[in-house]
Protein backbone atom coordinates (compact mmCIF):
# COMPACT_ATOMS: atom_id res chain seq x y z
CA UNK A 1 0.00 0.00 0.00
CA UNK A 2 2.97 2.30 0.17
CA UNK A 3 3.92 4.10 -2.98
CA UNK A 4 7.07 2.03 -3.17
CA UNK A 5 5.54 -1.22 -2.16
CA UNK A 6 7.98 -3.58 -0.50
CA UNK A 7 8.46 -6.95 -2.04
CA UNK A 8 6.45 -8.99 0.48
CA UNK A 9 8.32 -12.21 -0.21
CA UNK A 10 11.75 -10.59 0.15
CA UNK A 11 10.56 -8.94 3.33
CA UNK A 12 9.16 -12.14 4.82
CA UNK A 13 12.29 -14.07 3.85
CA UNK A 14 14.53 -11.44 5.44
CA UNK A 15 12.61 -11.32 8.71
CA UNK A 16 12.27 -15.10 8.91
CA UNK A 17 15.98 -15.67 8.31
CA UNK A 18 16.88 -13.02 10.90
CA UNK A 19 14.62 -14.83 13.37
CA UNK A 20 16.16 -18.20 12.49
CA UNK A 21 19.70 -16.83 12.87
CA UNK A 22 18.85 -15.33 16.27
CA UNK A 23 17.36 -18.64 17.44
CA UNK A 24 20.38 -20.62 16.23
CA UNK A 25 22.74 -18.24 17.96
CA UNK A 26 20.74 -18.74 21.15
CA UNK A 27 21.19 -22.51 20.81
CA UNK A 28 24.91 -22.32 20.00
CA UNK A 29 26.04 -19.67 22.49
CA UNK A 30 26.72 -20.33 26.14
CA UNK A 31 29.22 -21.54 28.70
CA UNK A 32 29.53 -24.90 27.06
CA UNK A 33 30.49 -24.59 23.41
CA UNK A 34 28.10 -26.57 21.26
CA UNK A 35 28.60 -26.61 17.49
CA UNK A 36 25.89 -26.20 14.88
CA UNK A 37 26.17 -29.88 13.93
CA UNK A 38 25.49 -30.90 17.53
CA UNK A 39 22.56 -28.48 17.72
CA UNK A 40 20.98 -30.02 14.63
CA UNK A 41 21.54 -33.52 15.99
CA UNK A 42 20.01 -32.48 19.33
CA UNK A 43 16.96 -31.02 17.57
CA UNK A 44 16.67 -34.23 15.57
CA UNK A 45 16.48 -36.18 18.84
CA UNK A 46 20.14 -37.09 19.41
CA UNK A 47 21.55 -38.27 22.75
CA UNK A 48 24.23 -36.93 25.06
CA UNK A 49 24.89 -34.04 27.41
CA UNK A 50 25.12 -31.44 24.64
CA UNK A 51 21.75 -32.58 23.30
CA UNK A 52 20.24 -32.36 26.79
CA UNK A 53 21.55 -28.84 27.29
CA UNK A 54 20.17 -27.75 23.93
CA UNK A 55 16.79 -29.41 24.37
CA UNK A 56 16.21 -28.89 28.09
CA UNK A 57 17.81 -25.50 28.70
CA UNK A 58 18.65 -23.46 25.65
CA UNK A 59 15.70 -24.30 23.38
CA UNK A 60 12.92 -23.54 25.92
CA UNK A 61 14.70 -20.34 26.93
CA UNK A 62 15.24 -19.21 23.33
CA UNK A 63 11.66 -19.99 22.38
CA UNK A 64 10.38 -18.25 25.52
CA UNK A 65 12.35 -15.11 24.67
CA UNK A 66 11.23 -15.22 21.05
CA UNK A 67 7.57 -15.76 21.88
CA UNK A 68 7.61 -13.11 24.58
CA UNK A 69 9.15 -10.57 22.20
CA UNK A 70 6.64 -11.46 19.50
CA UNK A 71 3.71 -11.20 21.91
CA UNK A 72 4.83 -7.85 23.31
CA UNK A 73 5.54 -6.30 19.90
CA UNK A 74 2.18 -7.48 18.54
CA UNK A 75 0.33 -6.25 21.62
CA UNK A 76 2.15 -2.90 21.38
CA UNK A 77 1.18 -2.48 17.74
CA UNK A 78 -2.47 -3.27 18.59
CA UNK A 79 -2.50 -0.90 21.59
CA UNK A 80 -1.10 1.92 19.45
CA UNK A 81 -3.96 1.50 16.98
CA UNK A 82 -6.57 1.03 19.72
CA UNK A 83 -5.51 4.15 21.61
CA UNK A 84 -4.40 5.97 18.45
CA UNK A 85 -1.44 7.04 20.49
CA UNK A 86 2.15 6.50 19.38
CA UNK A 87 3.26 6.38 23.03
CA UNK A 88 1.03 3.43 23.88
CA UNK A 89 2.74 0.19 24.85
CA UNK A 90 1.42 -3.16 26.08
CA UNK A 91 1.76 -2.10 29.72
CA UNK A 92 0.04 1.25 29.50
CA UNK A 93 -3.38 -0.05 30.54
CA UNK A 94 -2.14 -1.75 33.70
CA UNK A 95 -1.96 -5.35 32.47
CA UNK A 96 1.63 -5.81 33.60
CA UNK A 97 0.88 -4.00 36.85
CA UNK A 98 -1.88 -6.49 37.63
CA UNK A 99 0.41 -9.37 36.72
CA UNK A 100 3.18 -7.99 38.95
CA UNK A 101 0.83 -7.71 41.92
CA UNK A 102 -0.27 -11.32 41.41
CA UNK A 103 3.27 -12.61 41.01
CA UNK A 104 4.62 -10.72 44.02
CA UNK A 105 1.79 -11.95 46.22
CA UNK A 106 2.73 -15.50 45.22
CA UNK A 107 6.44 -14.85 45.85
CA UNK A 108 5.66 -13.23 49.22
CA UNK A 109 3.73 -16.34 50.20
CA UNK A 110 6.67 -18.47 49.04
CA UNK A 111 4.50 -20.31 46.52
CA UNK A 112 5.86 -22.63 43.84
CA UNK A 113 6.67 -21.17 40.44
CA UNK A 114 3.54 -22.59 38.85
CA UNK A 115 1.54 -20.50 41.35
CA UNK A 116 3.60 -17.42 40.55
CA UNK A 117 2.65 -17.90 36.90
CA UNK A 118 -0.98 -18.59 37.71
CA UNK A 119 -1.39 -15.59 40.00
CA UNK A 120 0.46 -13.36 37.54
CA UNK A 121 -1.93 -14.34 34.77
CA UNK A 122 -4.93 -13.96 37.07
CA UNK A 123 -3.67 -10.52 38.13
CA UNK A 124 -3.30 -9.45 34.50
CA UNK A 125 -6.84 -10.58 33.67
CA UNK A 126 -8.19 -8.83 36.78
CA UNK A 127 -6.51 -5.58 35.73
CA UNK A 128 -7.93 -6.00 32.23
CA UNK A 129 -11.49 -6.52 33.47
CA UNK A 130 -11.15 -3.70 36.00
CA UNK A 131 -10.02 -1.18 33.36
CA UNK A 132 -12.65 -2.48 30.96
CA UNK A 133 -15.43 -2.08 33.53
CA UNK A 134 -14.31 1.30 34.85
CA UNK A 135 -13.94 2.72 31.33
CA UNK A 136 -17.52 1.71 30.45
CA UNK A 137 -16.47 -1.41 28.66
CA UNK A 138 -19.14 -1.51 25.99
CA UNK A 139 -16.75 -0.09 23.41
CA UNK A 140 -18.28 3.38 23.64
CA UNK A 141 -15.31 4.71 25.56
CA UNK A 142 -13.27 7.56 24.27
CA UNK A 143 -9.63 6.61 24.04
CA UNK A 144 -8.76 9.32 26.57
CA UNK A 145 -11.05 7.72 29.11
CA UNK A 146 -9.65 4.26 28.47
CA UNK A 147 -6.10 5.60 28.62
CA UNK A 148 -6.65 7.49 31.87
CA UNK A 149 -8.42 4.56 33.52
CA UNK A 150 -5.59 2.24 32.50
CA UNK A 151 -2.87 4.62 33.66
CA UNK A 152 -4.58 5.04 37.03
CA UNK A 153 -5.00 1.29 37.52
CA UNK A 154 -1.34 0.84 36.53
CA UNK A 155 -0.33 3.48 39.08
CA UNK A 156 -2.32 1.70 41.79
CA UNK A 157 -0.64 -1.59 40.94
CA UNK A 158 2.74 0.13 40.99
CA UNK A 159 2.08 1.37 44.51
CA UNK A 160 1.07 -2.13 45.63
CA UNK A 161 4.27 -3.55 44.09
CA UNK A 162 6.43 -0.98 45.86
CA UNK A 163 4.69 -1.73 49.15
CA UNK A 164 5.28 -5.47 48.79
CA UNK A 165 8.94 -4.88 47.90
CA UNK A 166 9.37 -2.67 50.96
CA UNK A 167 7.78 -5.17 53.31
CA UNK A 168 9.27 -8.34 51.83
CA UNK A 169 12.11 -10.15 53.63
CA UNK A 170 15.50 -9.69 51.95
CA UNK A 171 15.60 -13.30 50.77
CA UNK A 172 12.52 -12.76 48.64
CA UNK A 173 13.40 -9.32 47.25
CA UNK A 174 15.93 -10.65 44.74
CA UNK A 175 13.50 -13.06 43.13
CA UNK A 176 10.87 -10.31 43.12
CA UNK A 177 13.20 -7.92 41.33
CA UNK A 178 14.18 -10.56 38.81
CA UNK A 179 10.53 -11.25 38.10
CA UNK A 180 9.85 -7.55 37.65
CA UNK A 181 12.77 -7.01 35.27
CA UNK A 182 11.89 -10.03 33.22
CA UNK A 183 13.81 -13.27 33.16
CA UNK A 184 13.56 -16.00 30.57
CA UNK A 185 15.75 -18.48 32.45
CA UNK A 186 12.90 -19.95 34.42
CA UNK A 187 10.56 -20.29 31.46
CA UNK A 188 10.47 -24.05 31.05
CA UNK A 189 7.09 -24.22 29.31
CA UNK A 190 7.09 -21.76 26.41
CA UNK A 191 4.96 -23.85 24.03
CA UNK A 192 1.45 -22.81 25.18
CA UNK A 193 2.52 -19.16 24.79
CA UNK A 194 3.71 -19.92 21.25
CA UNK A 195 0.24 -21.28 20.52
CA UNK A 196 -1.28 -18.07 21.94
CA UNK A 197 0.97 -15.97 19.68
CA UNK A 198 0.09 -17.96 16.57
CA UNK A 199 -3.64 -17.95 17.35
CA UNK A 200 -3.55 -14.25 18.17
CA UNK A 201 -1.91 -13.41 14.86
CA UNK A 202 -4.34 -15.67 13.03
CA UNK A 203 -7.24 -13.86 14.72
CA UNK A 204 -6.03 -10.35 13.97
CA UNK A 205 -4.74 -10.71 10.41
CA UNK A 206 -8.18 -10.92 8.74
CA UNK A 207 -8.98 -7.57 10.37
CA UNK A 208 -5.67 -5.87 9.65
CA UNK A 209 -7.11 -3.56 7.00
CA UNK A 210 -9.93 -2.61 9.39
CA UNK A 211 -7.17 -1.54 11.80
CA UNK A 212 -5.69 0.67 9.09
CA UNK A 213 -9.07 2.37 8.79
CA UNK A 214 -9.52 2.60 12.57
CA UNK A 215 -6.14 4.32 12.84
CA UNK A 216 -7.66 7.15 10.76
CA UNK A 217 -10.19 7.94 13.45
CA UNK A 218 -13.39 6.40 14.74
CA UNK A 219 -15.77 8.46 12.62
CA UNK A 220 -13.92 7.73 9.39
CA UNK A 221 -13.85 4.05 10.27
CA UNK A 222 -17.57 3.86 11.01
CA UNK A 223 -18.45 5.74 7.83
CA UNK A 224 -16.29 3.29 5.88
CA UNK A 225 -18.21 0.31 7.21
CA UNK A 226 -15.98 -0.84 10.07
CA UNK A 227 -17.87 -2.13 13.13
CA UNK A 228 -15.80 0.03 15.43
CA UNK A 229 -17.33 -0.99 18.74
CA UNK A 230 -16.86 -4.72 18.23
CA UNK A 231 -13.42 -4.21 16.73
CA UNK A 232 -12.23 -2.14 19.67
CA UNK A 233 -13.46 -4.63 22.25
CA UNK A 234 -11.80 -7.46 20.33
CA UNK A 235 -8.58 -5.45 20.05
CA UNK A 236 -8.57 -4.64 23.73
CA UNK A 237 -9.18 -8.21 24.83
CA UNK A 238 -6.67 -9.65 22.36
CA UNK A 239 -3.90 -7.15 23.17
CA UNK A 240 -4.48 -7.76 26.89
CA UNK A 241 -4.35 -11.54 26.54
CA UNK A 242 -1.14 -11.36 24.49
CA UNK A 243 0.42 -9.07 27.08
CA UNK A 244 -0.73 -11.22 29.98
CA UNK A 245 0.75 -14.30 28.31
CA UNK A 246 4.08 -12.57 27.68
CA UNK A 247 4.33 -11.15 31.18
CA UNK A 248 3.46 -14.48 32.76
CA UNK A 249 6.04 -16.27 30.63
CA UNK A 250 9.06 -13.97 31.04
CA UNK A 251 8.05 -10.89 33.04
CA UNK A 252 7.61 -7.20 32.28
CA UNK A 253 10.36 -6.80 29.74
CA UNK A 254 10.36 -3.15 28.80
CA UNK A 255 11.00 -1.43 25.50
CA UNK A 256 10.11 -4.22 23.03
CA UNK A 257 6.39 -3.46 22.92
CA UNK A 258 6.88 0.27 22.48
CA UNK A 259 9.84 0.45 20.14
CA UNK A 260 9.44 -2.52 17.81
CA UNK A 261 6.13 -1.29 16.30
CA UNK A 262 7.72 2.12 15.74
CA UNK A 263 10.84 0.60 14.29
CA UNK A 264 8.81 -1.48 11.85
CA UNK A 265 6.63 1.53 11.06
CA UNK A 266 9.69 3.63 10.23
CA UNK A 267 11.15 0.92 8.04
CA UNK A 268 8.03 -0.45 6.34
CA UNK A 269 5.19 2.04 6.79
CA UNK A 270 1.99 1.91 8.81
CA UNK A 271 0.03 -0.75 6.92
CA UNK A 272 -1.08 -3.10 9.71
CA UNK A 273 -1.19 -6.04 7.29
CA UNK A 274 2.60 -5.75 7.04
CA UNK A 275 3.30 -4.14 10.38
CA UNK A 276 1.71 -6.71 12.70
CA UNK A 277 3.41 -9.88 11.39
CA UNK A 278 6.67 -7.99 10.85
CA UNK A 279 6.52 -6.62 14.40
CA UNK A 280 5.91 -10.11 15.78
CA UNK A 281 8.98 -11.47 14.00
CA UNK A 282 11.17 -8.45 14.76
CA UNK A 283 10.11 -8.40 18.43
CA UNK A 284 10.89 -12.08 18.78
CA UNK A 285 14.25 -11.64 17.09
CA UNK A 286 15.22 -8.67 19.24
CA UNK A 287 14.32 -10.35 22.50
CA UNK A 288 16.08 -13.58 21.53
CA UNK A 289 19.24 -11.64 20.69
CA UNK A 290 18.99 -9.61 23.87
CA UNK A 291 18.38 -12.65 26.06
CA UNK A 292 21.27 -14.57 24.54
CA UNK A 293 23.55 -11.56 24.99
CA UNK A 294 22.27 -11.13 28.56
CA UNK A 295 23.41 -14.60 29.54
CA UNK A 296 26.71 -14.69 27.59
CA UNK A 297 28.28 -11.21 27.60
CA UNK A 298 29.66 -11.38 31.15
CA UNK A 299 28.86 -15.02 31.85
CA UNK A 300 28.32 -16.58 34.29
CA UNK A 301 26.80 -13.30 35.52
CA UNK A 302 23.35 -12.73 33.94
CA UNK A 303 22.22 -9.26 32.96
CA UNK A 304 18.58 -8.12 33.05
CA UNK A 305 17.29 -8.71 29.54
CA UNK A 306 15.40 -5.38 29.46
CA UNK A 307 18.73 -3.54 29.62
CA UNK A 308 19.98 -5.44 26.58
CA UNK A 309 16.80 -4.83 24.54
CA UNK A 310 17.30 -1.12 25.11
CA UNK A 311 21.03 -1.26 24.35
CA UNK A 312 20.34 -2.99 21.01
CA UNK A 313 17.12 -1.17 20.15
CA UNK A 314 17.98 2.45 20.92
CA UNK A 315 20.79 2.87 18.34
CA UNK A 316 18.81 1.02 15.66
CA UNK A 317 15.80 3.19 16.35
CA UNK A 318 17.76 6.43 16.33
CA UNK A 319 19.43 5.42 13.06
CA UNK A 320 16.07 4.81 11.39
CA UNK A 321 14.62 8.02 12.82
CA UNK A 322 17.53 10.04 11.44
CA UNK A 323 17.08 8.42 8.04
CA UNK A 324 13.48 9.71 7.85
CA UNK A 325 13.60 13.48 8.17
CA UNK A 326 10.12 14.91 8.52
Amino acid sequence: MRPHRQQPLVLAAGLLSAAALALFWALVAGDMPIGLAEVFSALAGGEGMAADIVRELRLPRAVAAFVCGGLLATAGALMQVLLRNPLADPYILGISGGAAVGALVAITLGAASIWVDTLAFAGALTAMLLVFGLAHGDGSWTQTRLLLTGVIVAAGCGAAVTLMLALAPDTRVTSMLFWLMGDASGAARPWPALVVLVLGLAAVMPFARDLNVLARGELNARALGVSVRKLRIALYVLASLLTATAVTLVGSVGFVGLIIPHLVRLALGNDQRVLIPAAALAGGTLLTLADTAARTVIAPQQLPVGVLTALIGVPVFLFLLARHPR
Partner: protein
Amino acid sequence: MSASRIDVPPLLEAERLALQVGERWLCCEFSLSLAPGECLALLGPNGAGKTTLLHTLAGLREPSVGQVRLGGLPYAAWSPLEAARFRGLLPQQQPDHFGASVLETVLIGRHPHLGRWGWETAEDEAIARQALADVGLQGFETRDVLTLSGGERQRVAIATLLAQAPQLFLLDEPLNHLDLHYQIATLDLFRRLVRNDAARHGAVMVLHDINLAARYADHIILLDGRGGVKAGDRDAVLRADLLSQAFGHPLRRFESEGRVLFLPD
Protein backbone atom coordinates in the same frame (compact mmCIF):
# COMPACT_ATOMS: atom_id res chain seq x y z
CA MET B 1 -39.01 17.60 -0.87
CA SER B 2 -39.32 16.97 -4.55
CA ALA B 3 -41.14 14.48 -6.67
CA SER B 4 -38.53 11.95 -7.69
CA ARG B 5 -39.05 9.72 -10.65
CA ILE B 6 -41.16 6.82 -9.54
CA ASP B 7 -38.80 4.04 -10.65
CA VAL B 8 -35.78 5.40 -8.72
CA PRO B 9 -36.07 5.38 -4.93
CA PRO B 10 -34.83 8.55 -3.26
CA LEU B 11 -31.19 8.38 -2.20
CA LEU B 12 -32.09 9.56 1.27
CA GLU B 13 -35.33 10.03 3.16
CA ALA B 14 -35.99 11.27 6.65
CA GLU B 15 -39.42 10.66 8.05
CA ARG B 16 -40.67 12.72 10.97
CA LEU B 17 -37.11 13.00 12.20
CA ALA B 18 -36.33 14.60 15.54
CA LEU B 19 -33.01 14.73 17.38
CA GLN B 20 -32.39 15.11 21.08
CA VAL B 21 -29.02 15.51 22.77
CA GLY B 22 -29.30 15.20 26.53
CA GLU B 23 -32.33 17.26 27.49
CA ARG B 24 -32.12 19.51 24.47
CA TRP B 25 -34.08 19.07 21.25
CA LEU B 26 -31.94 20.01 18.25
CA CYS B 27 -34.75 19.79 15.76
CA CYS B 28 -38.43 19.05 15.93
CA GLU B 29 -40.06 16.55 13.61
CA PHE B 30 -39.47 17.16 9.95
CA SER B 31 -39.28 15.09 6.80
CA LEU B 32 -37.14 15.29 3.71
CA SER B 33 -36.37 13.32 0.62
CA LEU B 34 -33.34 13.66 -1.65
CA ALA B 35 -33.55 12.29 -5.17
CA PRO B 36 -30.56 11.48 -7.38
CA GLY B 37 -29.31 14.59 -9.09
CA GLU B 38 -30.12 16.86 -6.16
CA CYS B 39 -28.06 18.79 -3.69
CA LEU B 40 -29.13 19.75 -0.17
CA ALA B 41 -27.46 22.27 2.12
CA LEU B 42 -27.66 22.26 5.94
CA LEU B 43 -27.43 25.74 7.42
CA GLY B 44 -27.59 27.02 10.95
CA PRO B 45 -25.70 28.81 13.70
CA ASN B 46 -22.86 27.21 15.72
CA GLY B 47 -24.03 24.37 17.91
CA ALA B 48 -27.41 24.10 16.20
CA GLY B 49 -26.85 20.40 15.52
CA LYS B 50 -25.86 20.38 11.84
CA THR B 51 -23.15 17.75 12.35
CA THR B 52 -25.39 15.66 14.61
CA LEU B 53 -28.09 15.75 11.94
CA LEU B 54 -25.59 14.83 9.22
CA HIS B 55 -24.31 11.89 11.26
CA THR B 56 -27.89 10.76 11.80
CA LEU B 57 -28.51 10.95 8.06
CA ALA B 58 -25.30 8.93 7.61
CA GLY B 59 -26.70 6.20 9.88
CA LEU B 60 -23.97 6.72 12.48
CA ARG B 61 -26.45 7.87 15.14
CA GLU B 62 -29.90 6.65 16.02
CA PRO B 63 -32.60 9.30 15.53
CA SER B 64 -34.49 10.11 18.74
CA VAL B 65 -37.77 10.03 16.80
CA GLY B 66 -38.55 8.96 13.27
CA GLN B 67 -36.61 7.03 10.69
CA VAL B 68 -33.87 7.56 8.11
CA ARG B 69 -33.95 5.51 4.91
CA LEU B 70 -31.04 5.11 2.54
CA GLY B 71 -31.94 4.12 -1.01
CA GLY B 72 -35.45 3.22 0.18
CA LEU B 73 -34.33 0.96 3.05
CA PRO B 74 -33.80 1.72 6.75
CA TYR B 75 -30.17 1.60 7.88
CA ALA B 76 -30.90 -1.55 9.88
CA ALA B 77 -31.40 -3.36 6.56
CA TRP B 78 -27.93 -2.35 5.31
CA SER B 79 -24.72 -4.04 6.33
CA PRO B 80 -22.10 -1.45 7.34
CA LEU B 81 -20.01 -2.23 4.26
CA GLU B 82 -22.94 -2.08 1.84
CA ALA B 83 -23.94 1.26 3.33
CA ALA B 84 -20.33 2.45 2.93
CA ARG B 85 -20.48 1.68 -0.78
CA PHE B 86 -23.70 3.69 -1.11
CA ARG B 87 -23.07 6.74 1.05
CA GLY B 88 -19.83 8.41 2.09
CA LEU B 89 -19.11 10.93 4.82
CA LEU B 90 -16.54 13.71 4.77
CA PRO B 91 -15.93 14.30 8.50
CA GLN B 92 -15.34 17.78 9.80
CA GLN B 93 -11.90 16.91 11.12
CA GLN B 94 -9.13 14.63 9.91
CA PRO B 95 -7.25 13.24 12.90
CA ASP B 96 -3.78 12.08 11.88
CA HIS B 97 -1.99 10.28 14.68
CA PHE B 98 0.55 8.45 12.55
CA GLY B 99 2.37 9.51 9.43
CA ALA B 100 1.18 8.06 6.12
CA SER B 101 1.61 8.92 2.48
CA VAL B 102 -1.12 10.83 0.68
CA LEU B 103 -1.75 7.90 -1.67
CA GLU B 104 -2.14 5.45 1.25
CA THR B 105 -4.57 7.85 2.87
CA VAL B 106 -6.72 8.13 -0.26
CA LEU B 107 -6.65 4.34 -0.72
CA ILE B 108 -8.34 4.03 2.70
CA GLY B 109 -11.48 5.09 0.81
CA ARG B 110 -11.38 1.83 -1.16
CA HIS B 111 -11.85 -0.19 2.04
CA PRO B 112 -15.55 -1.03 1.55
CA HIS B 113 -14.87 -2.24 -1.99
CA LEU B 114 -12.25 -4.82 -0.97
CA GLY B 115 -12.85 -8.28 0.44
CA ARG B 116 -11.69 -9.45 3.86
CA TRP B 117 -8.33 -10.61 2.48
CA GLY B 118 -8.22 -8.24 -0.47
CA TRP B 119 -5.32 -5.92 -1.18
CA GLU B 120 -5.63 -2.77 -3.21
CA THR B 121 -5.23 -3.54 -6.88
CA ALA B 122 -3.73 -1.44 -9.66
CA GLU B 123 -7.29 -0.40 -10.46
CA ASP B 124 -7.84 0.90 -6.92
CA GLU B 125 -4.59 2.80 -7.18
CA ALA B 126 -5.69 4.32 -10.50
CA ILE B 127 -8.98 5.40 -8.86
CA ALA B 128 -7.05 6.99 -6.00
CA ARG B 129 -4.68 8.82 -8.36
CA GLN B 130 -7.63 10.10 -10.39
CA ALA B 131 -9.31 11.31 -7.17
CA LEU B 132 -6.13 13.20 -6.26
CA ALA B 133 -6.04 14.75 -9.72
CA ASP B 134 -9.70 15.78 -9.31
CA VAL B 135 -8.84 17.85 -6.24
CA GLY B 136 -5.70 19.31 -7.83
CA LEU B 137 -3.21 17.23 -5.83
CA GLN B 138 -1.45 15.24 -8.56
CA GLY B 139 2.19 14.88 -7.64
CA PHE B 140 1.40 14.74 -3.90
CA GLU B 141 1.13 10.93 -3.79
CA THR B 142 4.29 10.28 -1.77
CA ARG B 143 4.00 13.27 0.56
CA ASP B 144 3.38 12.52 4.23
CA VAL B 145 -0.06 13.76 5.34
CA LEU B 146 1.53 15.22 8.48
CA THR B 147 3.47 17.69 6.31
CA LEU B 148 0.43 19.04 4.44
CA SER B 149 -1.18 22.42 4.98
CA GLY B 150 -4.74 22.50 6.34
CA GLY B 151 -6.25 23.11 2.93
CA GLU B 152 -4.19 20.37 1.29
CA ARG B 153 -5.18 17.94 4.03
CA GLN B 154 -8.83 18.83 3.47
CA ARG B 155 -8.48 18.12 -0.24
CA VAL B 156 -6.86 14.75 0.56
CA ALA B 157 -9.95 13.97 2.65
CA ILE B 158 -12.18 14.95 -0.28
CA ALA B 159 -10.11 12.72 -2.58
CA THR B 160 -10.53 9.86 -0.07
CA LEU B 161 -14.30 10.32 -0.29
CA LEU B 162 -14.13 10.38 -4.11
CA ALA B 163 -12.12 7.14 -4.05
CA GLN B 164 -14.84 5.62 -1.87
CA ALA B 165 -17.14 6.38 -4.84
CA PRO B 166 -20.47 6.49 -3.02
CA GLN B 167 -23.72 7.56 -4.67
CA LEU B 168 -24.61 9.86 -1.82
CA PHE B 169 -22.05 12.35 -0.52
CA LEU B 170 -22.51 13.64 3.03
CA LEU B 171 -20.14 16.56 3.47
CA ASP B 172 -19.48 18.15 6.86
CA GLU B 173 -18.12 21.62 6.17
CA PRO B 174 -16.37 20.59 2.95
CA LEU B 175 -14.91 24.08 2.56
CA ASN B 176 -12.97 24.02 5.85
CA HIS B 177 -9.46 25.43 5.38
CA LEU B 178 -9.97 25.90 1.63
CA ASP B 179 -9.06 29.14 -0.11
CA LEU B 180 -11.60 30.88 -2.33
CA HIS B 181 -10.45 29.12 -5.50
CA TYR B 182 -10.71 25.66 -4.01
CA GLN B 183 -14.01 26.46 -2.31
CA ILE B 184 -15.58 27.04 -5.70
CA ALA B 185 -13.63 24.21 -7.34
CA THR B 186 -14.84 21.78 -4.66
CA LEU B 187 -18.48 22.79 -4.94
CA ASP B 188 -18.23 22.70 -8.75
CA LEU B 189 -16.73 19.22 -8.54
CA PHE B 190 -19.61 17.87 -6.46
CA ARG B 191 -22.18 19.70 -8.59
CA ARG B 192 -20.70 18.08 -11.72
CA LEU B 193 -20.93 14.66 -10.09
CA VAL B 194 -24.49 15.25 -8.93
CA ARG B 195 -25.71 16.86 -12.14
CA ASN B 196 -24.08 14.51 -14.65
CA ASP B 197 -26.27 12.69 -17.14
CA ALA B 198 -26.44 9.40 -15.28
CA ALA B 199 -28.00 11.29 -12.34
CA ARG B 200 -26.97 8.66 -9.80
CA HIS B 201 -25.39 10.93 -7.23
CA GLY B 202 -26.71 13.28 -4.61
CA ALA B 203 -25.08 15.46 -1.98
CA VAL B 204 -25.92 16.79 1.47
CA MET B 205 -23.52 19.46 2.70
CA VAL B 206 -23.12 21.43 5.87
CA LEU B 207 -22.21 24.95 4.82
CA HIS B 208 -21.54 28.21 6.61
CA ASP B 209 -21.74 30.47 3.59
CA ILE B 210 -25.38 31.28 2.83
CA ASN B 211 -24.48 32.65 -0.58
CA LEU B 212 -22.68 29.48 -1.66
CA ALA B 213 -25.68 27.49 -0.42
CA ALA B 214 -27.92 29.75 -2.54
CA ARG B 215 -25.70 29.10 -5.52
CA TYR B 216 -25.22 25.32 -5.27
CA ALA B 217 -28.12 23.78 -3.33
CA ASP B 218 -31.54 22.74 -4.60
CA HIS B 219 -32.93 22.27 -1.10
CA ILE B 220 -32.11 23.79 2.25
CA ILE B 221 -32.51 22.66 5.84
CA LEU B 222 -32.19 25.61 8.18
CA LEU B 223 -31.73 24.87 11.88
CA ASP B 224 -32.24 27.79 14.25
CA GLY B 225 -30.46 26.31 17.27
CA ARG B 226 -33.64 26.38 19.38
CA GLY B 227 -35.22 23.26 17.93
CA GLY B 228 -36.86 24.97 14.98
CA VAL B 229 -36.34 23.56 11.48
CA LYS B 230 -37.19 25.01 8.10
CA ALA B 231 -36.84 22.47 5.34
CA GLY B 232 -37.78 22.97 1.76
CA ASP B 233 -36.82 24.21 -1.67
CA ARG B 234 -34.05 26.74 -1.77
CA ASP B 235 -36.12 29.81 -2.47
CA ALA B 236 -38.74 28.91 0.10
CA VAL B 237 -36.16 28.73 2.91
CA LEU B 238 -33.56 31.29 1.90
CA ARG B 239 -35.55 34.33 2.98
CA ALA B 240 -34.06 37.28 4.77
CA ASP B 241 -36.56 37.05 7.65
CA LEU B 242 -36.02 33.30 8.27
CA LEU B 243 -32.22 33.58 8.01
CA SER B 244 -32.07 36.64 10.27
CA GLN B 245 -34.14 34.84 12.88
CA ALA B 246 -32.09 31.61 12.68
CA PHE B 247 -28.67 33.28 12.83
CA GLY B 248 -29.72 35.95 15.31
CA HIS B 249 -28.32 38.67 13.11
CA PRO B 250 -30.20 40.90 10.64
CA LEU B 251 -29.54 39.97 7.01
CA ARG B 252 -30.52 41.77 3.87
CA ARG B 253 -31.29 40.19 0.51
CA PHE B 254 -29.83 41.57 -2.72
CA GLU B 255 -30.27 40.50 -6.29
CA SER B 256 -27.53 41.06 -8.80
CA GLU B 257 -27.19 39.66 -12.32
CA GLY B 258 -29.72 36.91 -11.59
CA ARG B 259 -28.00 35.87 -8.37
CA VAL B 260 -29.38 36.17 -4.87
CA LEU B 261 -27.04 37.45 -2.17
CA PHE B 262 -27.51 37.82 1.56
CA LEU B 263 -25.35 40.29 3.43
CA PRO B 264 -25.27 40.96 7.17
CA ASP B 265 -26.48 44.38 8.19
